[in-house]
């Protein structure tokens, strides 16, 4: 049917377009397989070493308010796996300030008849975080293996929690990119919410003071995507008194956070003034 301009074979839907961009990005990264393998192994070892620090701390002091190293391992694994997924998807937002706003090449994206979010997601599907992902998964499985009360329902809640966590971290990256419309250059302070979020998410919520607890519950819903789902999976009663089923629902907060950030992004794009090129 050569005279049908909008036949499905000629126009890619959003999913097809994304798949094609992602495929191109993966091929490009595997052009240097040696570099890729070394970087992935480096990523795996680095993140695993950071777990050795927490392990040493708990090894010396024993369990804290019912949290032993096994349960903390589950928490640590969960936050790392979620962050690795967001890191893989959100590279375009991470480099947005330097590569799109400062250079003015965001103008070109605006000319394309597609969502800017989709085009930026397709900037790169980064493979390097696979090191963090695998070590997080490894620590998570080990933690669940050691914990006494894990039930089969954990298998349903864990992917849901990882998805919620990835959505939340992706929301942070989108928010960071939206800020670039004002600051032009990327703001590294936002790393406090990404890497700093991972750092805070790997400890039980009860270890922190009240201001930090409130911040990572109500401002950045870190507790909703990591701490409460982990409590649910481990069948561990909440020392702060919330019922245990909260953990099965709370990862939705990660998606709500992502929604707010997408809204902020669209407002920011609407007011975009090019820096010229």
């Amino acid at each position, binding site marked *: 049917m050569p005279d049908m301009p909008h036949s499905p074979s000629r126009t890619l839907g959003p999913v097809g377009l994304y798949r094609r961009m992602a495929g191109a990005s993966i091929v490009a990264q595997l052009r240097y397989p040696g570099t890729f393998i070394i970087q992935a192994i480096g990523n795996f070892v680095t993140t695993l070493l950071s777990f*050795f620090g927490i392990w040493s701390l708990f090894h010396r002091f024993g369990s804290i308010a019912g949290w032993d190293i096994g349960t903390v391992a589950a928490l640590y694994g969960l936050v790392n796996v979620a962050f690795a997924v967001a890191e893989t998807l959100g590279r375009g937002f991470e480099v947005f300030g330097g590569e799109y706003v400062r250079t003015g090449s965001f103008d070109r994206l605006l000319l394309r008849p597609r969502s800017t979010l989709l085009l930026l997601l397709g900037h790169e599907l980064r493979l390097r975080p696979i090191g963090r992902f695998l070590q997080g998964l490894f620590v998570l499985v080990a933690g669940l293996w050691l914990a006494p009360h894990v039930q089969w329902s954990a298998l349903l809640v864990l992917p849901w929690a990882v998805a919620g966590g990835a959505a939340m971290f992706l929301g942070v990256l989108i928010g960071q990119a939206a800020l670039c419309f004002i600051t032009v250059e990327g703001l590294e302070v936002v790393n406090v919410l990404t890497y*700093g979020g991972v750092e805070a998410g790997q400890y039980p919520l*009860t270890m922190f003071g009240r201001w930090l607890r409130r911040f990572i519950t109500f401002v950045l819903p870190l507790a909703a995507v990591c701490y409460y789902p982990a409590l649910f999976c481990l069948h561990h009663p909440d020392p702060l008194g919330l019922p245990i089923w909260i953990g099965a629902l709370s990862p939705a907060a990660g998606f709500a956070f992502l929604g707010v950030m997408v809204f902020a992004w669209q407002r920011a794009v609407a007011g975009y003034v090019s820096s010229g090129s």
Partner: protein
Amino acid sequence: MSLRPYLTAFGLQWKIGLRYRIAVVAGLVAQMWFGAVTLMAYASVYHAAPDVQAPLSLRQAMTYTWIQQSLFTLLPLGCLPAIGDAARTGSIVYDLLRPVDMWNWWLSASLARLLGNAVPRAVLLACVAGPLAMIVGLGAWSLAPPASLISAILALVSIALGALLSATIVMGWNILTARTLSPLGSYAVGTPLAVLLSGMLLPLPLYPDWIRPFLLVQPFAGITDIPIRIYLGTPIPGGVATGLGLQIFWLAALTLLGRLWMRQTVNRLEVQGA
């Protein structure tokens, strides 16, 4: 032998480090966040297990963390950025042509880069975590003063040695960069090693007892861990002399090995680009 070229190299990199004022403020916010998270975690584990005899008291562990955070940019995380660029573009060949001792030339630049980054951040964070925290009523979380006047002076000597030692390790990353023609390898190896072995991740005295002697005698301990122990007045096996001795030993050993490696590298260096 004139010192002037080395002082010029030092002065240039020192100024580059001081240029990025917004980066200093951003770094301060990040260091305070990581400091706060770590401090609360330590406070919680110490309070949950009051009868555990830890090698550091809670206050000492907090002070250790603050100093460690403030000296983060003093760690040898990777090669000198200028050398990474030079290796990639091939302009490293100009360094070979200079009528100076290349080791000292690169070393003075590396040292200045570390100090130019670390000194403003350290002073700023020390003010915030020390006197300012006291004033706003967070005295229990603040940076404790040094154990005594003598330990303060010895700690200053030790931190100077530590900075020099860090620059010597950076020299190792620089040579690695010149060999592999890419700075990425030095960061991939250097950052995890430095963060773990210097005590940035967890104070070295808090690791399990069986591994502590090894952690003390490896070279990265000389950068920040030994100066902080002297500052806190916590016993180092064999006393302060062992601490300073270890630093001097590693400085001498790494300089010797580094110079040999550099000579061998320069002799067979292949430069890319034109």
